[in-house]
Structures are given as C-alpha cells and as structure tokens.
C-alpha cells in the first residue's frame, strides 16, 4: 500500500492548527482502539489470532469498527454477513483473513460459495492458510495505515 506523504505545515496554514491537531488525534485514537468483530466461518477461527496481535474482539456489530471475516463464505451466510456489516457504525473497515476469505481458496470452483469482496468492501486482505502471527501483525499494521490515511486525509 502506498502511503501519501502530506505536507503538514502546508495543511496547517490552510485549515488551522486546531483542526489538524484534532484530526491527527482522532486518527491516533481510532487506529489504536479499533474493536474488531470476528465472523469466522471456516477452520481459521480468528479469536485467538486477533488477541495474539493485540486486538480486542467484540461480539456486537453495534460496537465494532472492524469486521474480520475468515473462512469460505457460503451464499446462505453472505446475506447474514451483509446484514452484520450494515449494522456497524461508520467509519467501518473489513479484513478478509485467510485464503478462503481472500479468494475462496479451496472452494473456488463451488457453486455455493460467494466471494467476500463481492459482498462487503474489503480494506485489508491477510493471506495464509491459516495466517501466521507474522501475517496477522502485517495485516493489522496495514489496517492501521488504512484508518490513519482515511481520517487524516478527509
């Protein structure tokens, strides 16, 4: 992912010191306090792996900032996943975790499996079957960059 370098001094001259400081602070809070809701439909259940990398799982879409999807998404479950996503408050982010969620993996030729990216807009893809601690750390770091960029560059 390419990170845009921002000329902060120039931004401050245009928008004022307080606005920029507030936005940077908001981004810092958001990226460090993101609560993730795991939706695991396959064998790589994401609870333990999320806790490994320091993200607290929540189990209510109304309290979640990040939706972590893992496992092959069947057509029947796709409707439920979209409903969960719609219930989350904005701004919201989606991680597709594991090969099955990234590109259907083993189930690529199945008539009953939907692509996660077709159902919800995915921000970060974490490959691996299952993803190891290294990939998870990379993924969470990438998600923090996404959150930071999205809030700072409004």
């Amino acid at each position, binding site marked *: 992912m390419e990170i845009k370098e921002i000329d902060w001094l120039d931004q401050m001259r245009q928008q004022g010191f307080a606005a920029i400081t507030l936005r940077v602070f908001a981004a810092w809070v958001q990226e460090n306090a993101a609560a993730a809701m795991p939706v695991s439909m396959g064998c790589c259940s994401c609870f333990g792996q999320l806790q490994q990398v320091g993200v607290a799982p929540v189990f209510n879409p109304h309290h979640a900032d990040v939706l972590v999807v893992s496992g092959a998404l069947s*057509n*029947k479950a*796709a*409707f439920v996943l*979209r409903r969960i996503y719609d219930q989350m408050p904005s701004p919201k982010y989606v991680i597709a975790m594991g090969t099955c969620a990234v590109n259907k993996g083993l189930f690529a*030729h*199945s*008539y*009953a499996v*939907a*692509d996660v990216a*077709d*159902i*919800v807009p995915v921000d970060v893809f974490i490959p691996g079957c299952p993803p190891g601690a290294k990939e998870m750390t990379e993924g969470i770091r990438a998600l923090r960059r996404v959150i930071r960029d999205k809030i700072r560059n409004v």
Partner: protein
Amino acid sequence: MEAAAYKTQEEFGQFIRLHFARQDIPEQAVVSGMLTLTVLRAALLRILQFLRDDPVCRFTQLTDITCVHYPDRADCFSLVYHLLSPMMGRRLRIKLATQEDVPVSSVTAVFANAAWYEREIREMFGVSFEGHPDLRRLLTQDETFFFPLRKTFPAAGKVRLVYDQAKGQCVYVPCAKPEKESDVRLDRKMS
C-alpha cells in the same frame, strides 16, 4: 438359526424374492460383496416394511439413501437405499430407477431418519417424494432454482452472488464464461 440356512448372498436374495411378486423385484445381483435388489416404485414401501419386520431379515437401520443421475437414460435417476441388519450382521442395497416428474413414495413411515436424506435428494437432484411430512430445503438457499448434483450442472455454478449497491441487497448475477482450460474441464458436458 433359520438365517443360517441362507448362507450365500444369492440364497438370501432368493429368500426375499419369494415373498413378493416376480415383477416387484425384477433383478438381483451381488455387487462388490453386497446383495443388490432392483425394485419397482409401487413395491418399495412394502419391501422395506418386510425387510425391517421379518425375523430373518431384521434390517432395522437405514444407513443411507443416495441418488445417482444418468443423463442418458429414460429413467434418469437411480435411488440407492442402504440397509443394515445389526442382529444378523448383513447389509443390503436396494435400487430404484425413477424420473423427475413421477414422485417416489417417501419411506419416512418405515424409517424416520429417511426424512433428511429425502430432503437433501430433492434439493440436490430434483426428485420429488410423496407422503413426506416436511419437504423444505435442507442445505441450500430457499431461492435456489437449480439442482447442483445433476451431471448436467456445471460444478462452478451458473450464477454468483454479489451485493448490489443500487438495490441495497445481495443479488445473483450470471457467471462469466470460464476462460482457463482447467475451468472448462470442471464444467461437465451438457446433455
């Protein structure tokens, strides 16, 4: 003790056929060590009832019901019933050829566990059953309009599910034509 008289599979098959009219069980064979009876649609329930209750047979367990699709045949579906007799230590296979339009009588009255097998066969192959207490779909979506386990159905499916921003809901869209050769091979030949 009486069962000891029917030592071989063929003898046992002859014993079962003695209790029914000749046309009810037209064929009998031993396929890979298991006795296989081909039965007629009308006699299916009577035969299963007999096999369950007869003291020599005692096939008290219905292990499985499966279905096979033969696109070339006139009776294009073959239902296969697997029975187990724990008391007598025997297994038995019963075959029944059927079509899409003609319903098969449900065997839930004889074996209650047949209910889920028949639901699955109906949604996967489109074989209909009459006398079934609850013929809802078992696994697939309610709006599914295809029969996935038929030989004429492409393995990857004909539609895929995407979220439609304008409509605000998930909708089925037709699949793109397979481009790679490996994908084509998975699409079975249409009959």
